[in-house]
């Protein structure tokens, strides 16, 4: 084990008290929400099935449900003690489904609607992080209407003059790297913008920072509401680009848990994830994606209020590395949510 492992935050599940009042074991029936109508439907279904399998293995009756016209009726019929949202993108992350669950009086795992909406919008989240004195690569967020009104070439020239090249172009909302392109040459910028605008109306153009890519997940499982960072996961895709294929093809990307970064960087990236979780008002679980620059500076990229829970996702990987049984982890999150009923 590397030296960094000694300082990586770890969790001993055996020492964690169950949330007061209701034990994990008597959760009753729970519902895992997955699917939806976003571009990440496939990923979401993979997350949902994994979570259901883990919960069943841990002895909890878990139902997989889609976010469709049947959902509210199903909630009434099944009366779950809590819902775990494994929806990615769109209404699963922008607060909409959470608001409906609150109206229906159904407790759920995860961040409340207003904070979800804010965190899901990358430029809004980055702005709050920057105002808090944390580092995030410089960026410009521009809707496609602005390019049309002011002229695309002129706007792109201004952006490149400000940010330089290379840059990362990505939709302001959404995940799984869909619609994201690293641009190294100016002639590739218009094509990257069009690709991005196919996924949403606003693009974020962000200065490209080279370094070690890490993901740090945060969970709240001790019943007191305090957030706990899991070990940072270092992501090393063979092509250098952590795109959709690299994310969801098992074996396409190597991971290191804990990340092969020095103790100071490990502390910094862990503190960054906890700070993002706190500053953005997140709850229960989140994942912060960051870059440890070549000079050791840690840069915030984005945060996920509904992190991937698939077989290739970093939150389950970090949880297992920290000693969690995944089924018990999800039980604890659900038990915590059920307390809010």
């Amino acid at each position, binding site marked *: *084990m*590397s030296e960094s492992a000694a300082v990586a935050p770890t969790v001993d599940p055996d020492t964690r008290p169950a949330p007061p009042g209701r034990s994990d074991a008597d959760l009753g029936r729970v519902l895992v929400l997955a699917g939806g*109508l*976003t*571009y*990440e*439907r*496939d*990923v979401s*279904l993979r997350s949902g099935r994994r979570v259901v399998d883990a919960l069943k293995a841990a002895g909890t009756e878990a139902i997989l449900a889609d976010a*469709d016209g049947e959902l509210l009726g199903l909630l009434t019929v099944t009366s779950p003690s809590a819902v775990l949202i494994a929806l990615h993108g769109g209404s699963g992350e922008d607060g909409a489904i959470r608001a409906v669950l609150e109206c229906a009086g159904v407790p759920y795992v995860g961040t409340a609607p207003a904070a979800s909406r804010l965190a899901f919008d990358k430029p809004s989240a980055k702005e709050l992080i920057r105002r808090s004195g944390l580092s995030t690569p410089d960026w410009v967020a521009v809707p*496609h209407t602005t*390019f*049309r009104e002011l002229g*695309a*070439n002129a706007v792109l020239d201004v952006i490149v003059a400000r940010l330089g090249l290379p840059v990362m172009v990505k939709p302001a909302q959404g995940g*799984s790297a*869909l*619609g994201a*392109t690293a641009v190294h040459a100016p*002639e*590739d910028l*218009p*094509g*990257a*913008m*069009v*690709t991005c*605008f*196919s*996924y949403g109306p606003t693009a974020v153009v962000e200065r490209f920072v080279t370094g070690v890519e890490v993901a740090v997940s945060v969970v709240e499982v001790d019943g007191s509401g305090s957030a706990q960072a899991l070990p940072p996961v*270092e992501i*090393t895709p063979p*092509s250098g680009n952590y*795109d*959709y*294929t*690299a*994310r*969801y*093809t*098992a*074996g*396409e*990307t*190597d*991971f*290191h*848990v804990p990340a*092969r970064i020095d103790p100071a960087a490990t502390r910094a990236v862990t503190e960054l994830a906890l700070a993002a979780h706190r500053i953005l008002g997140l709850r229960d679980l989140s994942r912060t994606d960051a870059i440890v620059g070549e000079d050791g500076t840690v840069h915030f990229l984005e945060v996920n209020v509904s992190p991937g829970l698939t*077989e*290739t996702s970093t939150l389950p*990987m970090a949880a297992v590395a920290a000693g969690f049984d995944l089924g018990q982890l999800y039980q604890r999150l659900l038990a915590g949510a059920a307390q809010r009923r």
Partner: protein
Amino acid sequence: MAGITLDPYRDRYAQRMQGMTASEIRALFAVANRPEVVSLAGGSPYTAALPLDAVGAMLADLVAERGPMALNYGPGQGDPRLREQICEVMAVEGIVASPEDVVVTVGSQQALDLVSRVFLDPGDIVLAEAPSYVGALGTFAAAQAEIRHVAMDDDGLIPEALEAALTRCTAEGQRAKFLYTVPNFHNPAGVSLAEERRDRILEICSAAGLLILEDNPYGLLGFDGEITRALRARSDEGVIYLGSFSKTFAPGFRVGWVYAPHATREKLVLASEAQVLCPPSFSQFAVSRYLETQPWQEQIKIFREVYRERRDALIEAMTAHFPNGCRWTTARGGFYSWITLPPGLHSKVMQPRALAERVAYVPGTGFYADGQGGEFMRLSYCFPPPDRIREGVRRLGAVIEEEIELLETFGRGRRVPPGPASAPGAAAPPPDLV
């Protein structure tokens, strides 16, 4: 410190699996099958038009009368009675065949794989129409063949383009193993090989010693009821013929066939036995009984009418809703229309916007082995009812308009960012959408 790899066998896979990775296109198609989305992507036959009560009763009789045999292994070459009936079906297309030279397969997709196993070594050249059926491209790619596309127009494969491709092979000191062609109601192009070109194509291939792989799943589905004689009907040599009951009866049984010269047939049987032991007996018996007891040719007429009405709905809706600059083929049979987008538009790039508007199609890139085809898309009219087709086309028209507006903003000369390098098939839609 070693990292975590989520695939402990990563360094042991065969080279032919390179590029078989998760793809964005596959992920996006997960949305396409939702009922909220009008899917003009899928190539599924409209099996609801079958006499399901009669089929149910027929299957019950089959189990009652021949259950023990139907539920057991059978001959590797396929059920002898079904092979006779397959010859009767081929006779409708003018082919005089012996049941001895028919091999029943698990859909014609297995036939494609068997032919590839029997004929292709890594690096061999396969000539295929541009565009080509995505399932064939995936099979040839898995055999590590080099796929070279040959141009088509509204009359199908262009003889001069085929000659040019052969000339190029000769100049390079190479020889193509076979020409893969779908001559009738092409998937995805929706066109048919013109009568006057058929003999010419046969002559060119004969002169070059080039084997033809004729894939003909749609041949009986011409809307005017006229059946064009198959290439195999015109030549006793040099053509391996693939047929299927997926479009004329039901794909759920997965029954197809390959009709090949005697010596080749023996190799195909051995290859098939190594792969699946025997084609599924129950499915074969079911198809055989269907042909025996049901008016299957009358049912094909019903299918033709269903599909013609839907084709008309598609064409009328495209005429009404698609912006200037779009062109399309008007199929005289089969399932598909092939759309050419206005210059500069890219169907793969546009796909997320279409799904956001709840309409799905298959980007043209899936039908090329070399990443081309972005200016095209395939629309299927076989499954959704006419009203849904009209609604889907209306939505798609608006999507194309928006994409044109973006294009005008960012310029027509923009480069499309290259996607991840996926093998043909890996970036294709899933089986129920091919």
